[in-house]
């Protein structure tokens, strides 16, 4: 059983440690190697942009980092815990405490109001006052007037703001975002990235973000390029 509180305060400054991570999928008579022996470190509080051509394996990598899937081989250590060695449920428990998500297609539950959507992770984590916390966050993202509206009644940008509020609701150590501005126009995209970066600063969150948006990538402290299953780190970024 994973403990309620992180007992092992990480000795290193490393938030995410990836060692020789490979991912292959079976295509019947063939195997497709999506990631090959990928290794890198992401420090606490760092913001990292993962870039690369479409189909290069960015989403796959993000899924592995967050423990949504298990790798074919290699290790992923998140905040001192080796998630690639954990079972489904333990990974889920870890996510509940440590991880936030923002998706390209928002992924709000259509039946729930904005408020209820944000409350969802708080309820899962057994938060004391989920409603108050959620309201506060929604106000923070500028949707204080739209608490009771359902996703259908919100524009794409507004939906993504709700999603960001939801991602930060559980006070995550790491925030993963997969093309958070991919479905939005430039202006709205800018608002969203501003919000993301600001909240990230305020909460001291580690940010790992897949993006095609060059401007957004620029605002991250570090950039990882992925190509043909291998990760390279352009020298000039450091």
């Amino acid at each position, binding site marked *: 059983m994973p403990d309620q509180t992180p007992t092992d305060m990480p000795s290193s400054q490393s938030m995410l440690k990836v060692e020789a991570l490979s991912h292959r999928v079976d295509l019947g008579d063939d195997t497709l190697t999506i990631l090959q022996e990928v290794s890198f470190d992401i420090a606490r509080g760092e913001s990292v942009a993962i870039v690369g051509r479409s189909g290069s394996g960015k*989403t796959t990598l*993000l*899924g592995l980092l*967050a423990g*949504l*899937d298990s790798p074919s081989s290699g290790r992923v250590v998140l905040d001192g815990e080796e998630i690639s060695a954990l079972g*489904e*449920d333990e990974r*889920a*428990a*870890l*996510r*509940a*405490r440590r*991880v936030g*998500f923002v*998706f*390209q*297609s928002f*992924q709000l*539950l*259509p*039946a*729930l109001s904005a408020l*209820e959507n944000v*409350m*969802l*992770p*708080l*309820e*899962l*984590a*057994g*938060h004391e*006052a*989920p*409603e108050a916390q959620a309201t506060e966050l929604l106000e923070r993202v500028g949707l204080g007037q739209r608490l009771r509206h*359902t*996703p*259908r*009644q919100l*524009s794409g940008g507004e939906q993504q703001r709700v999603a960001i509020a*939801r991602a930060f609701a*559980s006070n995550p150590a790491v925030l993963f975002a*997969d093309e958070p501005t991919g479905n939005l126009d430039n202006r709205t995209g800018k608002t969203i990235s501003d919000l993301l970066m600001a909240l990230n600063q305020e909460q001291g969150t580690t940010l790992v973000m897949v993006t095609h948006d060059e401007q957004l990538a620029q605002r991250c402290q570090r950039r990882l390029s992925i190509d043909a299953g291998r990760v390279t780190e352009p020298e000039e970024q450091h």
Partner: protein
Amino acid sequence: MAVTGQLASVRRDLRERDVRVVITALVVAVATVATISLFASLLQRALVTSASAFLAADRQLEAEHGRPIPPDWYQEANRRGISTASMVEFSTMVFGGDRFQLVAVKAVSDAYPLRGQIEMQVGEGAERELVSRGPRPGEVWLNPRLMRLLALDMGDSLEVGNQALTVSGLLLREPDGGFSMAALAPRIMMHADDVPATGVVREGSRVEYVALFAGEEPELEAFHRWLEPQFHPSHEWKSVQDGETLSRSLQRAERFLLLGGSLAVLLAAVAVAVASREYALGQRDTVALLKTLGLRGGAISRLYLRRLALWGVAGCAGGLLLALPIYYGLAQVLSEVLERPVAAELDWRALLPALVTALVALFGFAYPPVRRLRQVAAMRVLRSEPGESGRRAWPDILLAGLAVFGLVWFYAGELAMVTALLGGVAALLAVLALVAWLMVLGLRHLRGGGTAWRLALVALYRHRQSTLSQVSVFAMTIMLACTLILVRSSLLDDWQAQLPENAPNHFLINIAPEKVDAVADFWEQRGHPLAQLYPMVRGRLTELNGQPVKEAVSKDERINALNRELNLTWMSELPADNALVQGQWFEAGARDGVSVEYELAERLGLKIGDRLGFTIGSDTLSETVTSIRTVQWESMQPNFYMAFPPDGQLAAMPSTWITSFYLPTSEKALLNDFARAFPTVSVLEVDHIIERIRAIVQQVTQAVEAILALILAAALVVMAAVVSATLRDRQREGALLRTLGGQQRLLVRSTMLEFALLGLVAGILGALAAEAAVWALQLRMFEGEFQWHWSVMLPVPLVSAALLSLFGRWQLAPVLKVSPMLLLRRLE
């Protein structure tokens, strides 16, 4: 080519979940309704045949007062494809083994019996046989008791009038062994051709001629219409429906089947409505897209209408394909139960209700939400519209309500049943609205937590829209199923109560008033005390308020009671199983007045204060109606249409006494002692009839159980369909919850809890609504007294909670299988 094109498009539609659910619901509906009505019509035929055996035919024509039935009536019947047989019944003295004995003779033609079989033995120790013919000319079969009374053996000779006949069998049971009051003496059966030679039957002697007819129902009806104008008052036309005890049981069974069918219809409607609503909701984006591409509202309506029609065809075809094997299976079971083959013909008329159900379900329930699709704004492509407003759904609900009403009415044909059922449903919906309101109020302040309990409660609130519709559907389904279970058990209890183990199975008739005490002593000493003895005077009802009764009563009322002599009695106390409906029972010492049986009073239109005139032998008697009472005709106790006060005029008329009592088969030998001690008293043995009735009730019971099982299966399918209707949403939600850190175990537990709570609430509501519906039904149709059915109702919420939580677990399986990765890959 057009057909293959349409098939292809059905196949394409089938890839959509909601379409699959709609079509499945239709298939289940058509299959259930078709199976039930096919089976009901088969059962009807089987039971009528079975019951027809009570007449040894489908119809009997009786002619009293020694008038033979004109031969051209037989010829006409034969011309119409109806088979005929004839018999003659009379009483006479027979001589055999140096003794004389009064017997009741039944002389039968070759074709007797047309329905049913005779049970006989060719000798005391021989095998019991079921045969489809009577004795051959020159032979005679005797009641075993008579055989012993006369000390005869097989092959001995028995003289009937001038004719000697050879004893060739023991008559154990005749199919038409009902008790008419003429058949008092021990029975012998001989061939009709021997009757003239006996010289016993002459013009005007007390002989009853009976013609037997068997054939198809429409022909029999037509023949009856042809025959009726030629009837003489002494003619009595008998059909199975007139047999009292059995026809009552049959009517109830038939009502039960109809009720079952109506419930199936309702269930189907619910399933179709749920699924098609889901479908319509899912189609909105497509419609918006089509509109953007330039399709107009009318074209869109036509497009979806054509789809619905295709689904209807697919659903009907699938349903029938499913129904037929089930039907043949049931027919097989029925044949085994009845111990004789039942022709499992396909009665195409019985399929009509199924097809009508499919049509109405489709166009009354599936069409309205689909029709509203044309109102979807093209703008939707760009931005989702807010959810549908409830107000727009009102016409749909009205239409659906009307459709259900019409459908159930069409199916059950009884306004009382329709009203009771739909009243129950309406009451249920009203309660649901209240509960919904309370639930939302109560759950609003609940906030989640890590425990499965809190999560389940929060989820109930979170899904309040679908929670409400699911509770409604489950509660309705449970209500319908419970109603059926309750009606079934009260039906079976009724039948059980009607013929308890030791129901009287022998009648003693013709007891002279001075022998009453001696007869009572005889049975008292042998451990079978007689419960109650009634005096009996035979008389006709001839006048009503000073007018001849046949004129006073409208012509189209055929009332058997007017055609024959009635048994009149006098009594001081109202028998325990009778109940006063109107008026006052006789006070002590009353001399005037008459108490009339309720149904007869209804048919004759009698009221308290009407004056009735009776002809008794050469005397007449006139009395005022002082009370109207119900009688338990099924009880096998002596029952009377007319009862007079003990100190009145009737008590002065010459009378005989009658009683009934229970005698086990093992002690039937006592009847011989009795016959020797009281030769003038007639013993009527009805134990065989009771056995037959029991056997038939057993068959009906099994059929009822089979139908019940079928409906319960349909109810399960409906529930499963409803649960899985939310699958798409739940899949997405499950993936999201797991991404956000929900553990599988927690998800499983909270989902099961959520559904268990749903089931509990739905179970309680459904059970209560079922009680209400049963109360209404019982009041109107099944004539029982209402009581709470705790033993049935208490487990219902628990069972439904358990069942639904299993359903919840079952539909969670695919949710758990979906990898959270799907969210990253744009699961929309």
